[in-house]
């Protein structure tokens, strides 16, 4: 019987090469059919979590389980088979710039299915219709706005009807109308297609309206997780700093360095 969680992290630690620890013995879960959002400071390992789930990075010690399978123990064929069950929307869409909107969405279908071109055409138009861009099928990526690029990328990500879809900061740089459209689409696709959604986002208002489950990541650890209401009501100063978007608090505004007095020679001036 499948677990209630599509993805689970167990005591996972990760660092790039010999660099500092990015994720420090974290455990988290993505409930099936829910929209989970990870928030936290930039450079805090949020995108790394997406890469770990997709098998682009492997970690030891610790485990990432996708539908019960240990991602770290899969070989190349196993990783590719698993990736066919997930879609990912990169921060800036990452459309193939030499292909039209239609060909971008058709790409995974042509690569992974033996469907006829007539069938592929119908599926592509259905996916584009779902994101409101059926009429833009013949445009090239250079002719699209930032919001349209992400919608095309979203259509491409759902082309193979994945079980899990991951969004890396889908709202960054979008105007309010495009942001609202994107948020509605993410919710609609999750509910109508029965997906499990994982999203990394800094847009708190949209996140609190959209998410079923929020994970706050800080200093490489899971600071708190829960429903939007639970996160907003948390008394933890760190969580409150995120919720109120305060520039200073447990997460410092200034990057660590020499003191102001040392840098500007204030001590020397006084002694002179």
């Amino acid at each position, binding site marked *: 019987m499948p677990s209630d969680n599509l993805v689970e992290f167990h005591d996972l630690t990760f660092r790039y090469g010999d660099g500092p620890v990015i994720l420090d013995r974290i455990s988290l879960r993505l409930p099936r059919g829910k929209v989970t959002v990870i928030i936290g400071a930039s450079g805090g390992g949020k995108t790394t979590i997406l890469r770990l789930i*997709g098998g682009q990075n492997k970690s030891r010690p610790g485990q990432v389980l996708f539908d019960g399978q240990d991602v770290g123990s899969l070989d190349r064929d196993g990783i*590719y088979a698993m*990736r066919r069950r997930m879609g*990912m929307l990169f921060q800036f869409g990452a459309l193939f710039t030499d292909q039209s909107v239609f060909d971008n969405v058709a*790409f*995974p279908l042509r690569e992974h299915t033996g469907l006829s071109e007539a069938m592929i055409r119908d599926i592509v138009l259905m996916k584009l219709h779902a994101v409101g861009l059926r009429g833009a099928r013949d445009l090239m990526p250079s002719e699209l706005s930032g919001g349209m690029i992400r919608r095309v990328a979203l259509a491409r990500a759902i082309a193979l009807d994945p079980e899990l879809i991951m969004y890396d900061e889908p709202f960054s740089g979008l105007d309010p109308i495009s942001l609202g459209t994107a948020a509605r689409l993410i919710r609609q696709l999750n509910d109508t297609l029965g997906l499990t959604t994982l999203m990394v986002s800094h847009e708190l208002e949209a996140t609190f309206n959209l998410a079923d489950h929020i994970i706050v990541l800080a200093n490489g650890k899971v600071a708190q997780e829960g429903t939007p209401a639970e996160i907003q009501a948390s008394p933890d100063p760190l969580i409150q700093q995120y919720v109120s978007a305060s520039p200073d608090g447990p997460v410092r505004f200034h990057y660590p360095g020499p003191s102001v007095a040392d840098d500007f020679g204030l001590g020397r001036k006084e002694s002179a």
Partner: protein
Amino acid sequence: MKWLHPAEVGYTVRQMLANMGLGARLFVRLAFGTFSSFKRFGLIRDQIHFLGNYSLAIIAISGLFVGFVFGLQGYYTLQRYGSAEALGLLVTLSLVRELGPVVTALLFAGRAGTSLTAEIGLMKAGEQISVMEMMAVDPIDRILAPRFWAGVIVMPLLAAVFSAMGIIGGWVVGVLMIGVDGGSFWSQIQGGVDVWADVGNGIIKTVVFGFAVTFIALLQGFEAHPTPEGVSRATTRTVVMSSLTVLGLDFILTAMMFTI
């Protein structure tokens, strides 16, 4: 003298060995593990069009001008010895055995190699390579292999065009402008050029250069730092490394061909 510190030297050597290992693995994978690319020949055909057609003008014009110069220089030297009628043979042998393959490879590195490196590097910077991996599509099979085999196929064809245009250039200058006998010009070529020893060796060179230049261009693009500066440096490295590799390989191949 920080770079003389043993740890720095060790780190640099380790990085170089790691890069060589990566390059060797990629070359073996491309040269021996991507024959399945030919099942989707359309991808290779598109790249042959891109690399070949768009390089055709510069190759043809360069070949013509090299032929002009050879016609002039060759006549100047040969007429001293009363052998001006051998001008056609001199031009043809020089082009088919040596200049055709080498200059074509150098021009190909500058025209097509740089465009391959920049294209792959910018795809990497734009996360197109990553997105392909996340779609369970191997970028080596889908992106690199068709370009690699297209480069290998196109290079001998471009070298043939270069040599043909060069011979025409030599004929224009020698026969039409200077007045060397046209019959001698062509009959010397017909009698003096051996298909296997001369043309065959030239073809072998172009195939080897095709492997080398296309691989270097793809490797530099694939390993480029995904930044504007990284892509720019990778493009420069493609031209420098390809040129030196072509000239070095040319010496080795020529020595082997004279020895064997």
